[in-house]
């Protein structure tokens, strides 16, 4: 087991963060650290805007970073579970990204 980093871009809505944290607890995964900020600089996320055909407004979306210590198989499962949260726009680990439900084999975030 090694420590891994997950990055999420999600809607900045009331209760959204609680869904992510709740999911970790509910499925028995542990959070080593968590950091969340509203996104102010959209430059690194232009590809998401292009992909979804939208423009983000300031304060609308947040970026979350979670560190967790798990094996490979569980990491894949966590990623897939997070992808299912309705308010998550994109989530990635070192190797893959789910962007609006579609899997890409690289870390785009």
């Amino acid at each position, binding site marked *: 087991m090694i420590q891994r980093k997950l990055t999420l871009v*999600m*809607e900045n809505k*009331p*209760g959204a963060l*609680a*869904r992510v944290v*709740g999911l970790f607890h*509910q499925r028995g995964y542990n959070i080593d650290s968590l950091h969340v900020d509203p996104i102010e600089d959209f430059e690194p996320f232009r590809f998401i805007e292009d992909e*979804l055909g*939208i423009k983000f407004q300031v304060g609308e979306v947040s970026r979350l970073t979670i560190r967790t210590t798990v094996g490979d*198989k569980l990491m*894949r*499962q966590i990623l*897939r*579970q997070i*992808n*299912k949260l*309705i*308010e*998550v*726009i994109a989530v990635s680990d070192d190797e893959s990204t*789910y962007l*609006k*439900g*579609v*899997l890409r084999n690289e870390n785009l975030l």
Partner: protein
Amino acid sequence: MKIAGNDILIQSLINEGVEYIFGYPGGAALHIYDSIFNQKEMQHILVRHEQGATHAADGYARATGKPGVVLVTSGPGATNAITGIATAFMDSIPMVVISGQVQSHLIGTDAFQETDMIGVSRPIVKHSFTVDKQENIAQIVKEAFHIATSGRQGPVVIDVPKDLTNPDELFDFNYPEKANIRSYNPPVKPENHQVSRAVDAILTAERPVIYAGGGTISSNASCELRELNELLDFPVTNTLMGLGVYPGTGKRFLGMLGMHGTYQANMAMHNADLIIAVGARFDDRITNTPEKFAPKAKVIHFDVDHSSVSKIIEADIAVFGQVKDSLKAINNYLRSRKDEINREKISPWHQQIREWKEKYGLNHELYKNDSDEHPILPQAAVQHIYQESEGKAFVTSDVGQHQMFAAQYYHFDEPRKWINSGGLGTMGFGLPSAMGVKLAYPEEEVICITGEGSIQMCIQELSTCSQYKLPIKIFNINNLALGMVKQWQDMNYDGRHSSISYEDSLPDFVGLAESYGHVGIKITKNSELKEGIAKALAIKDKLVFVDIYVDPNEHVYPMLVAPNGSLKDMWLGKGEKT
């Protein structure tokens, strides 16, 4: 035209085509109830407990494929709905639950009847919404229905603070045509390379099994599954949730698999070289010890939910997408390679399965023995119910031995006819879910096969059945105990029957049914069984409660040996193992 928040909510439901809303009023929901009073398009069904409302909506949804709708008040109304929401969540049933909430300015103050419904329900919903202002109600309802009914379906909660349904504040109302949720995109069509890899594996298999579950039913893919089977002639097994998706009397049907699956279904899975999992999730009641599951099999997994695939059993080939679309794609591609289908190749496998079935298959003719020298076998009771209803009824069930006997001995030839809580295993589900089914299909026979333990968990709904004149037929498989628990105590605790009986305190069910205005029938002997069941089914305009006293010492077999067993390790009878 401008209307108030309560009317916006109700008009939105009407726009969604909601026919029935199952609920129970209270302070925080009163403005909403006033709107219900003022309209005629949708009927409110007043249950006797909010758990009943959720199960009734759930039964309606399972039988029709349309979302079930529930309305409850804040606090205790909302918490009473939790078991039903969890039940729907575990079985991926589309449902929209509207809960009243205390006024916005009181939230967080421990106000009267305040419960954080969003927090309490979070782990058991697909999604939830708190209404923040009246202008957003219509959009939220639209999105809630879209989320509940798309992708892997499930329950959605909408929590509505009372002040936002105030009849005195008016707003424009336009019901949106589409829900546009930019962060949500459930997969629809499978990818071509996944389809062709699956077909390659299918064409080379020698010992294949199709293992179809509830996802095949939610996706309305029964036709496509049957087409696939016509092309391939493969053996088919169904999960408890999948019964009916392939005909229960079909030539290639192995019966249910898993914990109480048939010998031939479990043996076929264990020895297969290819398992085609369709809308099924390798639950622990199916796999037994995952490390020992089907050691020789390659696995193709069709599912709409990425997180279900390779969660328990690693899939060799994954086909993501609505199961219906995926099966269509497979069938089309298979047709183009039709001359590669070699039925000869699998005939020894069919022969092997026939031998297993002959050796230890279930005895479906127990009902023929009507001697009064022995007590009624619960299996025979179900067989009679099957015969007398000609296998055509909707059957709801509760949880326990009676549920397993119903699954084993009532053969469902159509999907959506077998309505049971597979994932959560919720006692109390049977009667209220039957109400939802009966409202949806008033002309069809709706049967509830229950146990004297389970029925008492939502027995208050007998009153609802009387109010709305729902002539359900309840068959209470009465073994005077929590039979399934007792069976485990017999098998694992040397017969120490801790807290499973209440023999002297059971109600007189016939008298109880009659007190609600229903008909009650008591059956204690084999010689009365056929006639009693026929008599109940012949009464078309009344609910009939048939209390059938069965052998209290019967066990459900086969039963997987656990822990550490594989699918080939089964108890076949008392003290008899494979």
